[in-house]
């Protein structure tokens, strides 16, 4: 029974992982028990076999041709990489050129999409005074123009020399053009319109209304109606 207990300890003992008190107990038992002594000897042999066996498996040097082969493989590895890149280079260059052309086309495209009714139209009010042009757009137009304008601000800044563009809601293009023409010809005073618009935009002023207190006539005791309404 005790031999069975010690047999489980032997591998740990020869691998140096058995607790000290157990190891001394095992060794003491091995001095008395021939079978366990033999088993312990075999376990030590196995441990040695393991280490030496694995050492033998990994022992050895690369062949003298190793460095030659390595140099050759390095050269081969670098060669196809270059050729592969060279083969793809025209395709990549073509794709880049196409991308540049598309970018230019997109940049030069009309600002607004005519097919979408929700999007306002752009009108170029040639030489129109700033004030008149502002009036040309309604409140909605200004709101739309604001969002559009923020998107295109950088572009607008770059083209300061060109006449200013203003955005009007769809359907009001003709009216805006007519207004612009009227202002340019002097038939309509743009500054007056602008002043009117500013007036219109002012917040409403609230005036107090004086209301006279309600007079309640005295009721007739008999009819319970106002005395002035009683007719005889």
């Amino acid at each position, binding site marked *: 029974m005790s031999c069975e207990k010690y047999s489980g300890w032997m*591998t*740990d003992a*020869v*691998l140096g*992982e058995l607790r000290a008190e157990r190891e001394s107990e095992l060794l003491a038992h091995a001095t008395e028990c021939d079978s366990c002594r*033999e088993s312990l*000897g*075999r*376990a030590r*042999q*196995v*441990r040695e*076999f*393991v*280490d*030496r*066996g*694995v*050492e*033998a*498996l*990994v*022992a*050895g*040097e*690369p*062949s*003298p041709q*190793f*460095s030659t*082969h*390595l*140099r050759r*493989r*390095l*050269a081969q*590895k*670098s060669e196809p990489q270059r050729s592969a890149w060279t083969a793809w280079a025209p395709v990549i260059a073509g794709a880049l050129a196409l991308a540049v052309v598309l970018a230019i086309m997109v940049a030069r495209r009309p600002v607004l999409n005519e097919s979408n009714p929700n999007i306002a139209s752009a009108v170029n009010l040639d030489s129109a005074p700033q004030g008149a042009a502002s009036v040309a757009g309604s409140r909605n137009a200004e709101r739309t123009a604001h969002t559009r304008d923020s998107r295109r601000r950088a572009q607008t800044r770059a083209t300061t020399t060109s006449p200013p563009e203003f955005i009007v809601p769809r359907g009001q293009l003709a009216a805006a053009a007519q207004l612009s023409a009227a202002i340019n010809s002097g038939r309509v005073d743009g500054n007056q319109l602008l002043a009117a618009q500013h007036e219109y935009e002012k917040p409403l002023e609230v005036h107090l209304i004086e209301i006279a207190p309600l007079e309640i006539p005295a009721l007739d005791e008999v009819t319970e109606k106002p005395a002035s309404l009683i007719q005889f």
Partner: protein
Amino acid sequence: MDGLAAGFPRSAVSRDESLAREFEQRLADCPKLAYRVALGVLHNTAEAEDVAQEAMLRAYCNFHRLRDRERFRGWLVRMAFRLALDRIRAKGRRERREHDVTRLLEEGQREANVENLIASREFERQVAQALDALPEKLRIVMVLAAIEGYNTREVAKLAGLPEGTVKSRLFLARKKLAESLQCLVKNTPAG
């Protein structure tokens, strides 16, 4: 092997000459290490050479990405180990009979029958088989510990593991190998 560092095509390494020189210096003593790690997995000298070369090629191409150059050896070792495992998996040959490691133990202090056992191809095959049966994490520490008698600290550095982990894995690996090889010793007369 001595001519290895001298003869690298510089264009393949890097545009940075100092980086290339640094790599070459490190590479001078590393092919052997990579080869032995691969041999411990593949048990075939030709394939081990091939894998070691592949590991060094990869190390060569990615050397600029390695931030801590002091870890180059461990990096190379792990790469060689992975590549060797991939090679085995790719070929579907878990058990190898054709390994050509012929040099076995030469120390003559033990009994003739035990020496014969160790020197026999059958023993070699059994050890290789038992080693192959180990889980990867146990196998790499066992192989590294067997290379030039690296101690636990060196194995830990190469494997990129804490020393305590290496110690426990080495114990487990040896225990499993001992259990696998026990039958061989039992069948051998004690002399």
